């Protein structure tokens, strides 16, 4: 007897086989076979023509390469004379299709980039001039920041135009020099082949490069420029260049916005060290505990310990924020435990402690996940060898497991420190940076504000964009230095693999 499952399988297989047979028969029908043959013949004809043309062309260029030519020319004059108009030089040298491409570049340079820089076709600004004047002499509705952004755009467009002009000059110059030496100029076939080969990476990354320039680099350039202006609440529509005034205020800790800088920096450093180290400690200990031989239910523990990482952080942070609110559930629990009303959100160190604990809770999962992966990869021989040498379990952990864990995860752990240094969501969503302590952290920042949330408050909420940008730059320079330090020492970078 066949079981019903086997029967069904048998039936399906039979069906498939029959279908296959039908397909084969259909192929063998004379009319279909003929059609197929015609299609194939057409295809082959096309392909043959293509490949023969290619062979012909490359034979041609071979011959051209081998037969030198004599010219009366001594100096690459055309390139010297025609560089202002890309395309003209190529045309004079007889490379017509290439000239067409470079003429398109000319159009960009002379009809878009240069007029834009001169203030034509701007949205509101005045091209490059706007960067100098910052709309000081403009009408009442003109805004300095728009003038600044359009000035930067003008610079970018100009640079692109210049690049095209320079490339064209170099191209004409190279061709001319080669002609003087007796090398024939490339024909279109040769140009196309060489562009396909060496130009591909540029074409492939051009869209990405454009987006990066305008979405990533332009805003950063504007930030750098704003940090040298007096863009603050009383200069919202019109601001002016102010030199290093913002930086001076920050370093000396003066003014409403710059005053609390050092205070906040101190707390940011404390926060980064404690919050990250706590998360690493919890994650490490949990991973070691779960991975012991005699623990049962490993899967269950692992899944549960991943939850804080898997649940979106903004939801858990907001929920904890509700629970610690005045009259919130956890506040009431704490109050009944201590016997007095304990409002975490009104106390500086209360908020700070809870924030660090909360980040420990949130961050431990990721560390746990990484460590578990590595622990499972440590070969058992190491422990057996240690045992034979007389090591206790504790010694094996201390001298084998922990060093291996720390070495392999070090770069990612450093990443965790920089992540927490800039951990905006937890600070902003938990208590909005509060509680406020005007004597220490001024009127803008709360006492749990990190530099990043302080910058947010300065630039987005309180309109101190100038100082905010300056702080951004100082912080970023430090971060960039750290990142570069790690980056340049990495294997990929040193082995020239990058």
């Amino acid at each position, binding site marked *: 007897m066949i079981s019903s499952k086997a029967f069904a399988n048998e039936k399906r297989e039979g069906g498939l086989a029959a279908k296959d047979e039908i397909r084969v028969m259909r192929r063998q029908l004379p009319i279909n076979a003929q059609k197929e043959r015609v299609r194939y013949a057409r295809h082959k004809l096309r392909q043959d023509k293509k490949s023969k043309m290619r062979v012909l062309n490359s034979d041609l260029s071979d011959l051209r390469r081998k037969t030198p030519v004599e010219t009366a020319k001594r100096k690459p004059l055309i390139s010297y004379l025609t560089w202002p108009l890309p395309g003209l030089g190529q045309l004079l040298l007889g490379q017509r299709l290439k000239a067409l491409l470079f003429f398109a570049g000319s159009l960009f340079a002379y009809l878009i980039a240069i007029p834009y820089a001169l203030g034509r076709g701007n*949205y509101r600004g005045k091209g490059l001039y706007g960067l100098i004047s910052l709309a000081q002499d403009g009408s009442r509705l003109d805004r300095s920041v728009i003038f600044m*952004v359009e000035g*930067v755009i003008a610079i970018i467009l100009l640079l692109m135009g210049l690049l095209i002009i320079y490339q064209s000059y170099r191209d004409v110059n190279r061709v001319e020099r080669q002609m003087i030496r007796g090398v024939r100029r490339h024909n279109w076939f040769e140009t196309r082949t060489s562009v*396909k080969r060496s130009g*591909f*990476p*540029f074409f*492939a990354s051009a869209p*990405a490069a454009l987006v*990066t320039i305008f*979405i*990533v*680099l332009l*805003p*950063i350039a504007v*930030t750098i420029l704003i940090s040298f202006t007096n863009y603050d609440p009383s200069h919202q529509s019109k601001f002016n260049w102010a030199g290093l005034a913002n930086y001076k205020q920050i370093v000396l800790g003066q003014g409403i916005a710059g005053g609390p800088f050092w205070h906040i920096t101190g707390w940011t450093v404390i926060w980064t060290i404690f919050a990250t180290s706590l998360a690493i400690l919890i994650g490490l200990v*949990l991973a070691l*505990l779960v991975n012991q*031989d*005699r*623990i049962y239910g490993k899967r269950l*523990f692992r899944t*549960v*310990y*991943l*939850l804080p990482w*898997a*649940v979106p952080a*903004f*939801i*858990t942070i*907001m*929920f*904890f924020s*509700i*629970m610690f609110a005045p*009259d*919130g*559930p956890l506040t009431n629990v704490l109050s009944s435990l201590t016997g007095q009303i304990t409002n975490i959100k009104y106390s500086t160190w209360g908020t700070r402690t809870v924030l660090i604990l909360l980040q420990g*809770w949130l961050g431990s999962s990721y560390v746990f996940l*990484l460590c578990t*992966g590595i622990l499972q990869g440590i070969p058992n021989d190491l422990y057996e060898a240690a045992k034979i040498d007389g090591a206790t379990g504790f010694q094996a952990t201390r001298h084998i497991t922990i060093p291996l864990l720390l070495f392999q995860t070090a*770069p*990612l752990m450093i*990443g965790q420190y920089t992540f927490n240094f*800039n951990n905006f969501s937890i600070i*902003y969503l938990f208590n909005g940076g509060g509680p406020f302590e005007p004597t220490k952290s001024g009127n803008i920042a709360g006492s749990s504000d990190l530099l990043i949330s302080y*910058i*947010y408050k300065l*630039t987005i909420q309180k309109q101190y964009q100038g100082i905010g*940008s300056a702080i951004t*730059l100082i912080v*970023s320079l430090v*971060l*960039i230095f750290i990142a*570069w330090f*790690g*980056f340049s020492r*990495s294997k990929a970078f040193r082995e020239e693999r*990058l």
Partner: protein
Amino acid sequence: MSKKKDKGLYLSDRPPLTAVKVVMLALSYILLFFYVFVILWPLAQILFTSFNGNHGSYIQIGVSFTFSTRHFQYLFGETYFLNWVLNTILIALATATLTLLFVSFTGYAYSRYRFKGRKASLTAVMLIQTIPSFAGIAAFYTLHSIIASIAPWFSRQMFLILIYAGGGIAGNTFILKDYIDSISTELDDAARIDGCGNLQVYRLIIMPIVRPMLAVITLWSFIGPFLDFMLPSILLNDPKAYTLATGLHTLINDVRNMHQPVFAAGGLLTAVPITILFIALQKQLVSGLASGAVKG
């Protein structure tokens, strides 16, 4: 343990438990279960709150539990929750698609071709991106109005997509490039001899091999908009256009619009699919993160 039933005969591979080890093991279990409680308690609170009909606008302790779906009804009836879900999914999909398109080209070009400014450009952009993105917010606003003055249909959400996709290019290019580097170039050479062009080599040879890494990159770019709170809260100004994170925040940040249990309900609905995704795909997600980090 069950093997020990047969008294006098010890069958386990492991050395027998000493008294100290029993204590240590018990301690381990206590610690592990304690932390399970620490994790599950707050999450369980979200679950119970969202289904507890006795909560008013605020969540309080000691409220008895009555099963009810009225917070969910409020969420779907009185708030723009469905809009937020739809917005987030659209933004995430567009971001993932754009990132995938950009990065496939750049990753391939940076890995397989040697050209001027290759090392410098990637390093520079990677380093410059440590500068927090909202610092350039003034530029973002202006850029958006400039583009919108040319193309009026260009909404703030589209700009958000561009920022997400543009911000991810450098990092993801680095990840993908590293992955393509590990594929032998002999495969490419063979394909080229057979007559493949640049793009054909990518499409027919490289892409099938790097598909796992492309999947990871797509996945992370897709999840990003679900988790980000900062950029949408700055850029988007219409509650209907909000994403999930900013939308749910409106339910708890304003006294007039305070509905904490509804927030819990919305949070639950958001968290469940993402959590399942993370737990199910943890290995793939971590592999993307780990290869993105600088290797020592």
